[in-house]
């Protein structure tokens, strides 16, 4: 599979030349394949949000370079093409809703792309349906009358309506209830399947990573310290806890069982897998 984002020795420095100078990204190299679901994890201040802001040119490298869909993000002439290819959903995106109705809010991006009215309507309806909002009912309402979870989904629909090739979500489920989280992740997976989009998810929720991601990149103090499949990453428990991260709860349980000397698999991630392992364990002792 071809790479859609190529990061080569990327460094970023905040407030360079001042006493407050902070190196927030330190020589990061990473290839992200087209169509992959990548999770980026790391403790607060590890550089996750700074990294993803380089993917659509909001920030440009202090050193090294970033190419997205073949475009060098430092090339200002290519900005417009870059923004069309990369959708970025910020933390708490519901704070960025501003239009009178959900429809006009979601339509804002497509309208700026110069599409016809019919195309705009089609895209808005499709995006609203993707996030589970009723295109006829919810679209007429003011975004400020919706509940927190619905506002979040409306805001994400505004980015999906652009049909980006790369969709970046910065902690999209923080503050949502468990069902809201599950649904949102389902919608995102559906968008990926339908559009063949690449998904980049910044999150603190290890269960979410275990369930959704194909690849995981781990940052610590601005450096890329691990990259691999979730099972590989979560098998390195000691290294993760040392940098303020953790295993998904079921993986933690199975690990502790192993430390007690019980014969269990080492690569368990989900509650279903943990249940399976414990059932096997109990079954054997009962036999």
């Amino acid at each position: 599979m071809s790479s859609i984002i190529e990061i080569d020795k990327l460094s970023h420095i905040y407030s360079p030349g001042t006493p407050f100078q902070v190196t927030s990204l330190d020589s990061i190299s990473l290839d992200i394949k087209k169509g992959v679901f990548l999770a980026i994890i790391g403790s607060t201040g590890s550089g996750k949000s700074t990294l993803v802001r380089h993917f659509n040119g909001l920030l440009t490298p202090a050193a090294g370079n970033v190419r997205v869909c073949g475009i060098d993000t430092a090339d200002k002439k290519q900005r417009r093409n870059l923004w069309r290819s990369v959708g970025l959903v910020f933390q708490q995106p519901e704070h960025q809703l501003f239009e009178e109705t959900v429809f006009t809010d979601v339509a804002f991006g497509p309208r700026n792309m110069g599409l016809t009215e019919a195309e705009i309507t089609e895209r808005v309806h499709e995006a609203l349906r993707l996030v589970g909002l009723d295109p006829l009912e919810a679209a007429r309402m003011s975004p400020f009358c919706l509940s927190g979870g619905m506002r979040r989904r409306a805001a994400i629909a505004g980015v999906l309506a652009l049909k980006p090739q790369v969709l970046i979500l910065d902690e999209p489920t923080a503050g949502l209830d468990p069902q809201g989280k599950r649904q949102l992740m389902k919608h995102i997976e559906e968008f990926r399947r339908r559009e063949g989009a690449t998904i980049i998810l910044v999150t603190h929720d290890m269960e979410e990573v275990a369930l959704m991601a194909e690849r995981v990149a781990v940052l610590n103090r601005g450096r890329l310290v691990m990259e691999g499949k979730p099972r590989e990453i979560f098998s390195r428990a000691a290294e993760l806890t040392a940098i303020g991260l953790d295993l998904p709860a079921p993986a933690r349980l199975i690990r502790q069982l192993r430390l007690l000397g019980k014969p269990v698999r080492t690569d368990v991630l989900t509650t279903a897998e943990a249940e399976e392992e414990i059932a096997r364990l109990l079954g054997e002792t009962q036999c």
Partner: protein
Amino acid sequence: MTMTESNGTGYLRGCPESQDSQLTAHDRDEIFIAVEDLTYIYNHDKAGGHRALSGIDLAVKAGEFLVVAGPNGSGKSTLARHFNAMLKPSGGRVIVAGMDTMIPENAWEIRRRVGMVFQNPDNQIVSSLVEEDAAFGAENLGLPSEEVKKRVEETLRLIGLSQYAKHAPHLLSGGQKQKLAIAGVLVMRPSCLVLDEPTSMLDPAGRVELMETLIRLNRTMQVTVVLVTHFMEEAVLADRVVVLSDGRIAVSGSPARVFAEVELLAELGLKLPAALEIAHGLRKRGFSLPQEILTMDDILAYLKNN
């Protein structure tokens, strides 16, 4: 998280009666916040007002660790905002430490007794030095500066931020910022902390750090804690859990009692804590696990001996 779980359950094991019955030792204690038939309607005076709470009856006991859970839009934050008179009832009453929140003269004293901490740590910082930020509330009480200084020192030590006193708050981690927000409230010596999803923006280590701090404040300083959260792993550590749905109390009681309502919780879109989900799955497969299982440590302890 592992540490929280073991510590938390350790504490809970100290008062076994809280496991299976709502009639805990707290019932003999004083009621700190009494909520009587509370109704709240947003835009009450306008057409199309939205009813967020209906007929809530609830007593928060002094020294209790209470979790308020429920789906988005169920009224959790609206309820929490009644506890320090940020919102006033459309119907019914809220009495805090004997004071009615409807009476404007009570607001000052109620807010001194009940401190609020919110979701986003960055929105709650007012100063460019940790110790100044922590002092803000106490200075507003008009306390002599010696007293403010003493309280800030004490509080930062208690909360584990002493070594950062002279640091800029924006250089703290998320968990440390939330602890600073708590410190800013604690210097006013409140009897109760109300926290609205304080861990939802924190990384795993920050979450553990904050929960340990809350449990410590509750157990050693007898601070009443009301925690609004979506994380069921946190709810398990409480004395009592109240689940709201559509502005009403759907179920309340000890964590063991509330989490036994597997079907109701699923209907409300809430998730069981992972440990309970695993235990529930195993029971369905025909294994008889003890009913007291709440946390991963409980499962471990059971498996150790079986």
